C-alpha cells in the first residue's frame, strides 16, 4: 500500500514535471563596478539587473512555450575599460555559455563591445548609449539597437526649450557653455555650437575642462563674469555636482541652468534640496505615468534605492524587451529572438518602443527639469507627458 502510494506520487510528480518543466536561463551582465563610470552604473545599471532578475523569477520565470525558465545572472566588472568589456562578453559567450547577454553600460563601452555581440550572434539592445552615427552602426551591426537617443536630439531638445523661453520673453539670448573634455561632452558641445547660433543665441563663454578636475571654481567664475542669461554644461556626474555647488556659491543669476548626466539622480535633489528647483538636465521621464511610478516603487523596494529619472527606466525597459522577445518568439534560440526584436514593438515602463529603419528608438526624452522635488520630462522626441518648463529663479 505504502509502496503503491509512493508510486502514484512519483507518477504524479513526473506528470507535473512534464507539464511545467522548469529550467534555468543564464543571462550575462557586464558593466563597471569600479573605474570612472562605476558611480553612474551603481545608480542606473546594476540595480536594474537585480530588479529585473527578481521580477522575472518572482513571476515564475520566463514562459517559453510550456517551459518556464528562471533567470540566473552572471555579472562581470569591466572596470570601465573597453578591453575588459570585450573580454567579459567573450567569456560569457564562450565559457559561461550565456543564453543572452544584457547590454553594457555607457556609449563607449557599448560601442566597444558591439563587434563581439555581433560575432557571437547576441542581440544588443543598448540602453545607455547616445550616439550620432546610427545609420553606419546599424548597417555594420544588424542586431545593435539604440534606445536612449542621439546627441543631436538631446541638444536640439534643449535649444527648443530655450528658444521657447526666449520667445516668451523669459530669458535673453546669451549663453555660457562648458563641457567635460571627454567623448560625450565634446560630441554634445560640437552639436550645440552651430545649433545655438542658428537659433539666434550668442555664446558668450565657451570652455572645456578635463575629466576629474578638482576645482571648477575658475570655470564658474569665468562663466559668471560673462554675465550670461543661460548656463549650459555638458557634464559628467562629479562635475555636475561641483558645477551646481559653484553656481550656488557664486549665486549665478541665470534663467536656464542646465547640467547633463547625474542631474536626474535622486542624490542631486538630496544634496541641493530647494536649490535644485528649476535646474534642467539631460533626459527625463513621465513622472506622472503610473507605469513609471510602479516601477520606481518596486526599484526602491527590491534594491533599497530610488531609480534616476532618466536612463534607469530605459535600462529596465531594454531588459523587458529581451524578456518579451524571448517569450514572444517562444524559443530561447538567439536567432529567432533577434528576429522577434527586429520585427516587433514593445510595451515597457517608459511606454511603447518601436524601431525606425536604423534599429533606433526615435521617441526619447531629451530635457527634464526639477520642479518641486520631482524631475519631470519637459522635452522629448515623441514621448507622452511633457510638462511646461519653468524659469530658474535664484538658488534659495
Amino acid at each position, binding site marked *: 500500500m505504502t509502496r503503491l502510494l509512493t508510486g502514484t506520487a512519483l507518477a504524479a510528480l513526473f506528470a507535473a514535471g512534464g507539464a511545467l518543466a522548469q529550467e534555468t536561463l543564464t543571462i550575462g551582465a557586464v558593466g563597471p*563596478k*569600479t*573605474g*570612472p563610470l*562605476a*558611480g553612474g*552604473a*551603481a*545608480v542606473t545599471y*546594476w540595480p536594474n539587473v537585480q530588479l529585473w532578475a527578481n521580477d522575472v523569477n518572482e513571476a515564475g520565470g520566463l514562459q517559453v512555450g510550456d517551459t518556464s525558465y528562471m533567470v540566473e545572472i552572471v555579472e562581470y566588472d569591466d572596470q570601465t575599460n573597453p578591453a575588459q568589456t570585450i573580454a567579459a562578453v567573450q567569456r560569457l559567450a564562450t565559457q559561461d555559455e550565456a543564453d543572452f547577454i544584457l547590454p553594457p553600460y555607457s556609449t563607449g563601452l557599448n560601442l566597444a563591445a558591439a563587434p563581439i555581440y555581433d560575432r557571437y550572434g547576441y542581440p544588443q539592445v543598448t540602453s545607455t548609449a547616445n550616439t550620432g552615427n546610427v545609420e553606419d552602426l546599424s548597417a555594420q551591426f544588424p542586431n545593435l539597437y539604440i534606445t536612449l537617443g542621439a546627441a543631436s536630439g538631446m541638444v536640439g531638445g534643449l535649444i527648443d526649450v530655450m528658444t521657447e523661453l526666449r520667445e516668451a520673453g523669459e530669458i535673453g539670448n546669451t549663453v555660457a557653455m*562648458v563641457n567635460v*573634455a571627454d567623448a560625450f561632452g565634446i560630441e554634445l558641445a560640437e552639436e550645440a555650437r552651430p545649433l545655438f547660433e542658428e537659433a539666434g543665441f550668442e555664446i558668450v563663454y565657451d*570652455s*572645456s*575642462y*578635463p575629466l*576629474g*578636475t*578638482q*576645482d*571648477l*571654481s*575658475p*570655470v564658474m*567664475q*569665468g562663466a559668471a563674469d560673462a554675465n550670461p542669461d543661460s548656463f549650459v554644461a555638458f557634464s559628467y*556626474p*562629479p562635475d555636475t*555636482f*561641483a558645477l551646481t*555647488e*559653484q553656481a*550656488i*556659491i*557664486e*549665486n549665478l543669476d541665470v534663467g536656464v541652468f542646465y547640467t547633463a548626466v*547625474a542631474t536626474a*539622480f535622486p*542624490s*542631486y535633489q*538630496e*544634496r*541641493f*534640496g530647494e536649490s535644485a528647483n528649476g535646474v534642467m538636465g539631460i533626459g527625463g521621464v513621465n513622472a506622472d505615468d503610473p507605469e513609471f511610478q510602479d516601477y520606481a516603487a518596486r526599484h526602491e523596494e527590491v534594491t533599497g*534605492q530610488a531609480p534616476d529619472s532618466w536612463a534607469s527606466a530605459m535600462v529596465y525597459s531594454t531588459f523587458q524587451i529581451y524578456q518579451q522577445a524571448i517569450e514572444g518568439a517562444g524559443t530561447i534560440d538567439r536567432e529567432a529572438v533577434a528576429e522577434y526584436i527586429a520585427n516587433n514593438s514593445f510595451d515597457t515602463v517608459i511606454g511603447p518602443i518601436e524601431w525606425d529603419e536604423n534599429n533606433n528608438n526615435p521617441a526619447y526624452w531629451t530635457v527634464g527639469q526639477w520642479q518641486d522635488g520631482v524631475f519631470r520630462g519637459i522635452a522629448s522626441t515623441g514621448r507622452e507627458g511633457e510638462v511646461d518648463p519653468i524659469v530658474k529663479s535664484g538658488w534659495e
Partner: protein
Amino acid sequence: MDIIFTGLLLGGTYALIATGLNLQYGMARIMNLANGETLVAGGFGAFWFWTSSQVSPLLTIFVVAPLAFALNWLIYVVVLRPLVKRAKSRGQLEVDAILTTFGLSFVGVGVMLALFGGDYFSYSYLAQPVQFIGETYGLNRVVAFAAAVLLCGALWIWLYRSRAGMSVRAIAVSPDSARLVGIDVPSLSARAFALGGAVTAVGGALVSSFLTLDASTGVIFTLKALIIVIMGGVGDIRGTILAAVLLGILETFVATLIDPGLTLAAAYLLFILILLLRPQGLLGRART
C-alpha cells in the same frame, strides 16, 4: 589677486591630499599606492556621519583619524614589515612596496564597494559664499584650507621642534645610522606610516565636503599626491606644501587666463620641468 586666492585654496586641498603620502613615502619608505583608498575611506566616513546624523566633517575627523591610524599601523605591521625586513636595498623595498600596495589598492576598492556600494558620496556642507576683497569663495574650501594650514603647521612643528619628530627625520635620512643612535626604527616607521594614513584620511574627510567621491576614485588622488610629493622632494614636508600651493596657483592661473582644458597639461609640464631641473624635488636633498 583673485587667481592667487583661488589657487591658494586649491593648493590647500592638494596639500591635504599629498602630505600623508609624503609621511609614508618619505619617512616610512613605503611608496603607498593604496593612499587614495585611505582618502576615499576618510571621505566616506564624513559622508556617513553627515547624512546619518548631521555630524560636521570637522568633528568627524577626530573619529576618522584614530581609526585610520590603527588600520594603517596594522597594515604596516602585518603586510609591509616583512618586506622591509627582507629588502636588501632601498630600491628592492621600493619595488616590493609598490607591487604590494598596488594590490592593496584593489583590496581597498573591493572592500569599500562591498561596504558602501558604488554610488557617489555626495552631500552639501558649508556650500556658502564667503566674500573676500570683492570676490566670492566657497566656505567649505576656505575651511578645508584653514584645516590644511593647521594640520601642516602642526606636522611641521612636530617634525622640526620635537625629539620624536627629529627621530622620524633621522629614519628618513638614514635608517641604518638612526639605529646606531638608539632609535627604534621598526616601531617608529610603523607609527610614521600610520600617521601618514591618518593625515590622508583626515584630508579625505575634509575634501569630501566639496569633491564628489565614489569607491573607485582613489587612484586619481594617489596620482596627484605622487606628483606633488615628487615635485616637493621626498621626505620633506615643506617641499610638499610648496609644491601643492605652486600647483594650485598654476592650475588656477591657466584655467582663468588661458583655458580650463589645459590645466592637466600645465600641471604635467611643471612636473616634467621640475624633474629635469631639480630631480631631487624643490626642497629635496640630492641622494648621495
